[in-house]
């Protein structure tokens, strides 16, 4: 099993969708939310994801396809 700590940033049009529910149900990824701030026009969630590496990659690709930004909890680590 692989683990990943990520920050998901949701575009306004996805705020009302049960995105994390589908990540759990459709991909069989274990999620553990640590912090979040979701309002009407924006939202972010910091959570740990746990699954097989390949499953995690598929789940992340699906999130990106939905327009959800997936970053490490450290955000941008490539520094000029």
């Amino acid at each position: 099993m692989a683990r990943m700590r990520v920050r998901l940033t949701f575009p306004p049009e996805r705020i009302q969708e049960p995105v994390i529910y589908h990540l759990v149900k459709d991909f069989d990824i274990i999620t553990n939310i640590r912090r979040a701030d979701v309002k009407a026009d924006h939202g972010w969630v910091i959570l740990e994801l746990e699954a097989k590496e390949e499953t995690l990659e598929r789940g992340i690709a699906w999130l990106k396809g939905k327009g959800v930004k997936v970053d490490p909890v450290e955000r941008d680590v490539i520094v000029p």
Partner: protein
Amino acid sequence: MTKLKGLKCRECGRRYPSSPVHICEFCFGPVEVDYDYDALKGVITRQSIAAGPPSIWRYRELLPIEGDVAVGHHVGFTPLIRSQNLAEELGVRELWIKNDSVCHPTWSFKDRVVAVAVTRAKEFGFDTIACASTGNLANSVAAHAAEARLKSYIFIPADLEQGKIVATLVYQPTLVAVEGTYDEVNRLCSEVSDKYRWAFVNINIRPYYSEGSKTYGYEILEQLGWRAPGHIVVPCAGGSLITKIWKAIREFASLGLIERPATRMYAAQAAGCGPIVTMVKNDTDVLTPVRPNTIAKSLAIGNPADGYYAYRVVKDSGGYGEHATDEEIVEGMLLLARTEGIFTETAGGVTVAVTKKLIETGVIPRDESIVICITGNGLKTPDVLYERLDTHVTIRPLLSAFDRALAELKSQARS
């Protein structure tokens, strides 16, 4: 040594022993170094600092190291210059330039953070230093790792131009060029730092690394004659520097080294990558990540780690922020060079341009003390100016040709 109390989560306040940890295990918030300030009161004095070496290490009691200084003995203590010409052009009474474009050894303020990070990494027993960087940080990590005789790994996006790599490769690190999008490279670096027991300076060593930026603030205060200026304009990329200058001011004040400060902090960013300034202007604590599109590559961080905290410093200090367009950035670089003889990189151009705007719009008053932060050297990235600078006159090797050209130039100058 007792001065280090350990680490503390900036979100939930949970404490950790001093170790290579950068994320709170509970809330995944960033952790930062916590000091025993009560033990430092009276121990750190103006005299004790002034008796120290002319480098960042004169402030070592306020830095997160425990043993001897390992590398970077000559980093910092760069000039704080009282500007005459630029001050006159901007129409202000008291303008100072903190000039890290001449920071030893790799000409940017990154030497401050890396010297602290590598020293701490050696104390933790790491034998490998690493970072993911496209510019100044890579230069500095490779240089300090060489001095420390440690292995170093530098991760870069595979499409980075060769010209940007030479100033890192010369120190002979292992350079890993990663194919993929920015986000993919970014995530890989985070995963590598999680898996390998390396000192990734801006990831698992970040709490110690970022403390090095405080020295930029300490120096401003000391060099101003132990006082805080009215206004400080700071270029923002990841957002850490502005928070650490602010922390330096508060620490010096709480230790009784300066009088009550009333400094306002201003964030300077490029219009093509300015998420922190956008937060300030929109008065929101929500950072919206952006895709950088600016010539200010040294500030191009679209999803800054310390964006929220930088925003807080600006708000708490009563400051503001402003964007600079690419054209304004170049004008800022040229203005600083023309008036003060300082060739800064694009980040400095952003700072000068933003300072000019903030003065012209009345946000920064003309009769109070202002410090602008110049954090890197223009000689590293002269390419942004290639098409904007021109030789004034070309002549044949004849004195008569020069006479004619000179007359023409003088007549152009008059008209």
